[in-house]
């Protein structure tokens, strides 16, 4: 008798629990962001020039500008961004679990990240390649002379895999020293606990610029990998992916078409001669509405951070301490790879 009662109610309990499973929730990322009133954007914990809080705790940098542009396009306010610092370990899970809406964090576009991890890379905002930095007095002029060296790497990055491939293909051995953050890797390198520091060449240049004696270190000429870095979003919410992709493209097209932070308001005041400019700025057609945004969304994005070239120059360009040349990241018209599909 007791047992029957017990089992009966147990069955009832399981049944009740089953109902809980039935309801699933819905909600697009765009709707969530608009409801929340701010964009959750994943960035690094600090790479000079790309994403770093300044003295007032305000995030600045090349990747940060992408976040601000998207916030300006979606919410009309470039400051409506909550920056979430992520490490190599946490970045993908933060995005996958919905903690952040997009990731703009020196992340290399690779096959498996795009497919197996179920993310969508919306484009490339910086074409990079992996390089090596060594102390000048080590007397090394090429990465092929590094057989037997001790190498500091930031774990959880593609650089770790490229490094293994590079040394294996060249039949060399090395001693890997895995380190969690770039900052600590630099400390180890400066202390001499490793002979070589390897990461993306842009980051190497940025770190080297901050050294007490930048000339004591040299960046070796070899570029051992392709590192197309770009913002990414969750796979499956294509509308949201479109918004981020075309915000980035708007910045790129703006440079190509000569729209700058300075003249964007003026150009947007009335429709001009160039139909593509008009379409981007919302004075002609309704492109922005096709992705569910206000007509002046892209204008707001450009007004907030400037065009691609301006973002590059103010954060990492040759006039800054980081001093990177445009190189591959010049517009295709100047012999680079930066190329936006047409706004039509």
């Amino acid at each position: 008798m007791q047992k029957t009662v017990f089992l009966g109610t147990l069955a009832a309990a399981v049944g009740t629990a089953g109902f809980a499973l039935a309801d699933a929730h819905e909600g697009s990322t765009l709707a969530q962001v608009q409801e929340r009133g701010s964009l959750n954007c994943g960035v690094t914990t600090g790479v000079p020039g790309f994403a770093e809080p300044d003295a007032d705790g305000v995030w600045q940098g090349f990747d940060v500008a992408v976040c601000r542009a998207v916030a300006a396009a979606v919410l009309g306010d470039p400051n409506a961004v909550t920056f979430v610092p992520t490490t190599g370990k946490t970045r993908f899970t933060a995005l996958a679990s919905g903690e952040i809406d997009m990731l703009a964090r020196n992340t290399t576009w690779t096959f498996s990240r795009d497919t197996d991890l179920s993310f969508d890379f919306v484009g490339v905002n910086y074409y990079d390649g992996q390089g090596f930095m060594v102390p000048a007095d080590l007397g090394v002029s090429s990465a092929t002379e590094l057989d037997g060296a001790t190498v500091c790497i930031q774990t959880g990055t593609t650089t770790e895999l490229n490094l293994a491939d590079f040394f294996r293909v060249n039949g060399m051995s090395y001693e890997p020293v895995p380190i969690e953050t770039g900052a600590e890797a630099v400390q180890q390198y400066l202390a001499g606990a490793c002979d070589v520091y390897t990461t993306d060449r842009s980051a190497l240049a940025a770190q080297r610029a901050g050294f007490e004696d930048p000339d004591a270190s040299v960046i070796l000429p070899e570029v051992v990998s392709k590192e197309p870095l770009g913002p990414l979003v969750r796979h499956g919410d294509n509308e949201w992916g479109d918004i981020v992709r075309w915000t980035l493209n708007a910045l790129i097209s703006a440079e190509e078409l000569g729209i700058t932070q300075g003249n964007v308001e003026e150009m947007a005041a009335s429709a001009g001669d160039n139909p593509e400019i008009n379409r981007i700025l919302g004075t002609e057609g309704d492109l922005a509405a096709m992705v569910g945004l206000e007509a002046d969304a892209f204008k707001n994005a450009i007004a907030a951070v400037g065009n691609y070239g301006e973002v590059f120059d103010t954060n990492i360009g040759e006039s800054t301490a980081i001093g990177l040349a445009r190189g591959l990241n010049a517009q295709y018209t100047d012999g680079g790879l930066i190329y936006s599909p047409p706004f039509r």
Partner: protein
Amino acid sequence: MGIRGATPMATTTEQAPDAGGGFRLSQLWYDTRYRSYTFQLIALVLLILAFAWLINNAFNNPVLQEAGISFEFLGAPAGYDINQQPIPYTSQDTHLRATVIGAINTLIVAFLACVTATVFGVIAGVLRLSKNWIVSKLMAVYVEMFRNIPVLIWILIIFTVAANVFPAMADFRIPRDGSDPTRTPVLGMFAFTNQGVFIPRLTFDGQGWLFLAIFAASVLGVFGWRRYARNELYSKGREVPVWWPSLLILFVPVIVAQFALGQPVGLENPEMGRFRFDGGFLLRPSLIALWFALSIYTGAFIAENVRAGILAVSKGQTEAAAALGLRPGRIMSLVVLPQALRVIIPPLISQYLNITKNTSLAIAVGYMDLTGTLGGITLNQTGRALECILLLMAFYLSFSLAISAIMNVYNRSVALKER
């Protein structure tokens, strides 16, 4: 907290079943016979609902829906290199092999730290009870200082020392102009550098196995001799020397074998290469930091356990032993310590478990233990967070449970000897 009955002795107020009245719904609450089922049922429902909610959320997560849960990544090539390889490994081996290496590295550092922590702990614990004022105070300072500062800070401090205070590797390199390096290894064998400590390595050539077999036989021989000596003492009352024959048995055959077999065992000293020492054995700064920090930190806790254990042996035991004419050293080893061990060993084992769990802090200094390979690089590279962390927890959990099981067996065996 609505739970009925706490102890085996708690008595239930048994009520006579209603005479033919059958089952009423209110009995579920007011009748103690049924109330326990009601409570368990409520708890069960709540628990199932909670789990259902959690799992439901996971099912609805867009990324988990897309990627699913799969352990196939363990069979894929890992692609990254590991510096400390107890078993051969290349970047083309699988994630599974990298995981196994991580597990072995965890056990290596855990074992080393357990041994040295015990040594530190026993020394500090005994010395803290010393009559020598300055020694006991020094030990008290050691224990309090290490117990009250987080182990992560100790690990990082020692890691910083290893990277910054040890001489730079550059000083050992042969300068490009061919002149003598600023520093050379101590005795030509030990090099303390900021890239790790290089020590000589034992090498065995062709007949090395024979040498090892002879050595093993000698060790057995020593045990045999001690047994023989004790038998002689107990049965015939004849005292047979133990120490110098043991030493003879242990070393003479080995030395003879070394020369007779043409020196099968050699020392390989570290030799300077282009960037660092080749040959020899490398203790990496990460291993040193983890090993040493865990040893001194846990040693402070073990010292307290040892002290408590010794104090738990009643003074009468020491006095009785002294009355029998035993010398202080023998009182300690024959009377006090055996009794103290019964008190010391259970907390000691739990300290060993703590060491094993604390080795997971390896990730702070880049030591390639299980947290560094499976929970670190593999997780980062494959993005399979859920699977990796499940495996990681399963490893630590099964290890802890295995030790606890052994511990229970030991406790039972100790308990049996008591009255």
